[in-house]
């Protein structure tokens, strides 16, 4: 797979992930560029990579954490602070509210499972946590969201 093909296939995946986490298009664009620059520099590792999607998303996740750290250093805002953004539809707004009941890692896991179809093992690689932890967090988060869906709020 060439660099151009990787970009074509995964740029939208990475951007979607970054926008979900950051909700700020200019920062997401910067991190997208940093991510693919790093991918280009390590492209020789690709043949040994099991899941290119998880590999690229783990690079994106680390670049995003770095970007937030840099911003924290400048603005003295906690790293955990995710900038507020707007969702496009009313339905999104209500569901986004339900998602805020979850911890940050749980939100990321739910997004990875349902929006990107990632496996628990791939999510473990991206978030650098054991697969078992991903499974238990996914289970807990799902239960909460099921409850929200059943209540129809």
């Amino acid at each position, binding site marked *: 797979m060439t*660099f151009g093909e990787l*970009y074509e296939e995964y*740029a*939208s995946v990475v*951007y*979607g992930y970054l*926008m*979900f986490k950051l909700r700020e*298009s200019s920062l997401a*664009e910067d991190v*997208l*560029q940093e991510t*693919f*620059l790093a991918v*280009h520099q390590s492209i020789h590792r690709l043949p040994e990579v099991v899941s290119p999607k998880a590999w690229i998303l783990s690079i994106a996740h680390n670049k995003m954490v770095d970007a937030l750290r840099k911003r924290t250093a400048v603005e003295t805002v906690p790293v955990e602070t995710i900038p507020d953004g707007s*969702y496009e*539809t009313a*339905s*999104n707004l209500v*569901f*986004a509210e339900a*998602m805020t009941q979850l911890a940050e890692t749980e939100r990321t896991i*739910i*997004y990875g*499972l*349902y*929006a990107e*179809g990632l*496996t628990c093992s791939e999510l473990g690689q991206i978030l650098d946590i054991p697969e078992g932890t991903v499974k238990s967090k996914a*289970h807990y988060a*799902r239960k909460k*969201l*099921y409850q929200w*869906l*059943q209540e129809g709020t």
Partner: protein
Amino acid sequence: MRVEHEDLSALAYGLVQNTLPDVQKRRAQQLVMDSPEFLEALKLEVALKSEVKSLKKALPKSVELRVYGNLTVHCHQLLYKSVLQAILKATLPSITRPIFGLLERSVCANELP
């Protein structure tokens, strides 16, 4: 046979994500007919997938092209620099190395598109 609720959820998730092996897929399809509980779990999974997917932002074409353009320029610069370095190092006499170092910083780093 009683099917545990956890098992139903996992099965429903697998069916929605299309990740089940054939045997389990057939079992899930059978449960759609036989088990109202499974049908409920399946509805929740479909709703959850749809809600989460609706949060996903598409990559605007303008951003996609701009970032790719920037990456291409950067990659060409790196390639040019490494090729030029190799050629100059191989061809220039060692006495010129300190000058080469200065040129490398000012010419290779800044002069390309």
